[in-house]
């Protein structure tokens, strides 16, 4: 590739302190709730307190009559403004016509299907007045039996969508070879479970919609993740041309996959703003955030491993049930697809047959959360591998080493998932290097004697697991670079900043590509006003896709500079030398970037890609378990990941450590709980526990760049999610090793003290 040849890293690869920090540390960030507009109104949303029921009546007369209330909207009002029908939230990823009936309406009509589903929007002069008015709205809902879990979903205890006749919208199949034909000397089948939990970004979601009727312009602040996709969805549903809708990204207080998809509010708030012709702001509160932002992770799976007696894996067979909640939301297809496709992880598995069903329940709808389906798959697989290795009398490290895909087998095909059919292959790397490094870092050999040992009243144990992380989703990303009059450049990219340091790493890439200092680069991102098309930040794609688009734009800009300078020098463009700082020279004559800027120089770059990147690694944990209380202390955790090329070691390591701790939350603490009536039990941060500063002090992340991806000019691989992927498997393997004398085998998360205590009570040595 030509681009790769000319890219010489200089700032790339160095721990540049972040640009973003200068404003964020001084309280000068601009998050959506920091915005104020003249005449701005505030919205609050009435949500269903019934999990499943038929809506008989909504009486909002009292609310409408309250002072300060400017508008109250129910499904009836939305339908009137939308040709009699209620718009639904389309599937953004892996859409299929057969899933369309399960899309969520932007406001409940006829039925409610989960606690938290929007029933009415109140807009008032202040948020307090809007919330006061909510309480006066009378709702009459005829309760229906609730479907609280995947078992009652399968039994059709009630049907969420009567017309469908079942609560199972789809069953995906992941296939490689012919797993059902494999006869093996060793087979073990186990059932595992991961609990419902989710991202819980520190900044709740928020929107500010401004309608300019005179110019037919809808401007929505608070976009994140995928502004162009959100614009397209909103424009269609508001019956506006896309050009009449702009999505503006501000500072975003955490993404993790959950924030920035299209939600009911992404329609309702612009709808209210257009109705009232006034700016309307809505900021989610924490209860709504826990209730109504995408949930994830709730998967039960039966997995069967078939091996030779020497531990060589012959086949994986499995059946997964993914509790989807009440609707199939924008990114809802991904967890059930990923748990099937990535069950085999970084291992050589010649035969795979996995079925994965979406199961509808009367709970909050599910979407992607950092490492979607992969965190779950890794927990299932790595637990099963430890059980198989022990049965076969093979060291568990050796079992993994024997089955890891080798460098020579790259690119290595994994299972194909359908429908729609998606073939997938790993792009390259030496998976044994990260395993060996991880073992060395935690001191595996020295600590091996600790397994199952009782020291000062606690059982010690070590765990290990290997993982891959997919990144770099296509189809494209775009960038544009403009030479400014002062000789600086403005770089515009379709990627979005969700807290990952996009501004800094992108500016590093641009600075090296243009051979200019970072101070001369102005960076703009994530808003539909900047580029005709952009794709955003998800699937660990912003460095690979956005960064490569910037490289392309930089090369195109240099060509434009050559052409402009050639006109001035009256020579051929090929004879113009573009030097550092974008100066142009020819036979002793030279022009600075500022001198050339008057010629109106700009260039665009697009990076198109259909090959995913696969960062990979291994993680290890050392735990101590108090068998009397079930309390587990994580004494040490090390993760090692090869991400192809490190743009900024500070941010790469920072995200790896952060992802590990987020995964530890999902392993030990976090649980979105419902009762049998579908009532939500964890609506505050006092009920839904997040890791705190005292919980996990000893985490280390080592990020390597031994094996650049062959599929992009930077050689980078998506690297923001890998840290979280193996955590559940690795930690529970360590707990199993610690409790081996008691015969306890974790098969479910979270491993809270009561859960571990019960596990010990119910096991037999």
């Amino acid at each position, binding site marked *: 590739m030509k681009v790769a040849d000319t890219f010489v890293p200089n700032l790339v690869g160095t721990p540049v302190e972040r640009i973003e920090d200068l404003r964020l540390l001084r309280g000068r960030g601009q*998050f959506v709730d920091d915005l104020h507009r003249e005449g701005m109104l505030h919205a609050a949303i009435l949500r269903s307190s019934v999990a499943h029921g038929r809506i008989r009546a909504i009486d909002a007369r009292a609310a409408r009559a309250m002072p300060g209330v400017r508008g109250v909207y129910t499904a009836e009002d939305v339908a009137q403004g939308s040709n009699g029908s209620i718009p639904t939230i389309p599937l953004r990823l892996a859409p299929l016509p057969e899933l369309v009936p399960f899309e969520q309406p932007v406001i409940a009509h006829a039925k409610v299907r989960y606690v938290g589903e929007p029933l009415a929007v109140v807009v008032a002069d202040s948020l307090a007045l809007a919330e006061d008015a909510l309480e006066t709205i009378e709702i009459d809902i005829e309760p229906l039996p609730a479907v609280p879990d995947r078992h009652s979903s399968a039994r059709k205890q009630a049907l969420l969508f009567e017309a469908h006749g079942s609560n199972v919208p789809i069953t995906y199949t992941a296939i490689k070879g012919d797993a059902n034909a494999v006869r093996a000397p060793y087979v073990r089948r186990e059932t595992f479970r991961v609990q419902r939990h989710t991202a819980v970004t520190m900044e709740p979601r928020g929107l500010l919609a401004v309608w300019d009727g005179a110019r037919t312009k809808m401007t929505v602040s608070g976009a994140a993740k995928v502004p162009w996709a959100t614009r397209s969805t909103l424009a269609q549903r508001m019956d506006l041309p896309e050009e009449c809708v702009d999505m503006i990204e501000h*500072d975003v*207080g955490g993404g993790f996959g959950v924030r920035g998809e299209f939600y009911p509010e992404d329609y309702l708030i612009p709808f209210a703003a257009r109705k009232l012709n006034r700016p309307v702001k809505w900021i989610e509160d924490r209860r709504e955030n826990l209730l109504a932002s995408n949930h994830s992770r709730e998967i039960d799976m039966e997995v069967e491993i078939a091996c030779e007696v020497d531990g060589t894996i012959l086949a994986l067979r499995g059946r997964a049930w993914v509790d989807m909640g009440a609707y199939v939301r924008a990114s809802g297809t991904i967890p059930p697809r990923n748990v099937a496709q990535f069950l085999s992880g970084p291992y050589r598995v010649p035969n795979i047959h996995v079925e994965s069903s979406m199961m509808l329940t009367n709970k909050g709808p599910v979407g992607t959360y950092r490492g979607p389906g992969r965190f779950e798959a890794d927990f299932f697989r790595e637990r099963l591998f430890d059980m198989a290795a022990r049965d076969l009398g093979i060291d568990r490290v050796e079992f993994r080493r024997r089955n890891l895909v080798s460098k020579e087998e790259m690119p290595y095909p994994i299972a194909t998932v359908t429908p729609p059919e998606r073939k997938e292959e790993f792009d390259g790397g030496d998976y044994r290097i990260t395993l060996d490094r991880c073992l060395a870092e935690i001191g595996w050999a020295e600590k091996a004697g600790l397994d199952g040992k009782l020291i000062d009243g606690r059982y010690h144990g070590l765990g290990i697991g290997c993982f891959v992380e997919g990144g770099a989703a296509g189809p494209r990303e775009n960038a544009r670079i403009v030479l400014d009059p002062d000789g600086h450049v403005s770089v515009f990219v379709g990627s979005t900043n969700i807290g990952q340091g996009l501004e800094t790493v992108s500016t590093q890439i641009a600075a090296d590509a243009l051979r200019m200092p970072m101070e001369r680069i102005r960076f703009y991102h994530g808003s539909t006003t900047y580029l005709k098309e952009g794709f955003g930040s998800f699937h660990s794609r912003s460095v690979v896709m956005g960064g490569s688009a910037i490289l392309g734009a930089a090369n195109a800009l240099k060509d434009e500079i050559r052409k402009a300078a050639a006109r001035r020098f009256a020579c051929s463009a090929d004879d113009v030398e573009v030097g550092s700082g974008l100066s142009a020279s020819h036979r002793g004559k030279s022009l600075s970037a500022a001198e050339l800027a008057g010629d109106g120089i700009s260039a665009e770059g697009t990076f198109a890609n259909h090959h995913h990147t696969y960062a990979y690694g291994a993680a290890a944990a050392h735990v101590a378990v108090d068998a009397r209380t079930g309390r587990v202390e994580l004494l040490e955790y090390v993760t090692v990941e090869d991400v192809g090329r490190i743009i900024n070691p500070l941010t790469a390591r920072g995200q790896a450590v*952060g992802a590990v701790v987020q995964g530890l939350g999902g392993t030990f603490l976090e649980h979105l709980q419902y009762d049998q009536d579908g009532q939500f039990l964890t609506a505050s941060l006092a009920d839904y526990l997040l890791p705190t500063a005292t919980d996990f002090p000893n985490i280390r992340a080592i990020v390597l760049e031994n094996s650049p991806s062959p599929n992009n000019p930077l050689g980078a691989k998506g690297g923001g999610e890998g840290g979280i992927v193996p955590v559940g498997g690795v930690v529970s393997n360590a707990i199993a090793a610690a409790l081996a004398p008691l015969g306890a085998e974790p098969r479910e998360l979270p491993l809270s003290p009561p859960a571990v205590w019960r596990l010990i009570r119910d096991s037999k040595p």
Partner: protein
Amino acid sequence: MANRTITVRFELNGKQIAAKVPVRTTLGDCLRHDLMQTGTHLACEHGVCGACTVIVDGAAVRSCLMLAVQAEGAKVITVEGLSSDDALTPLQAAFRKHHALQCGFCTPGMITTAHALLSAEPDADKARIREVLSGNLCRCTGYISIVEAVYEARAAYRIRK
């Protein structure tokens, strides 16, 4: 009754201010929406996450759990009051150096909490720093870099003392 307003007067970041607010307004909402000091962030509004922490008469308090009227006559310091136009403070510079923030939403509460701690206990060890910061949630960093940053910033507070 809920909409009755009252004028509250207090010292905010060294300046005397007056704000006319509904009596039920929290200090956090008053700072953000009446006084337009949006550096203080609200993330849970039920006193768990610590993002809204401000310093009232020297103590780190949660501005979501305190009514604006309770600040009458008090000295209130927010992240804006702990910042200068010229350069980052040693505490902020340590956060930047150690990459102790990613999305930055919890950061103002981390800065105010750490400032209150180090002003009172410039010799706080890592365990003490962790204990105090355990009242502030961060979803991005995993806290390790934050503890390192606060630990490094201790030197500046010792000199100040």
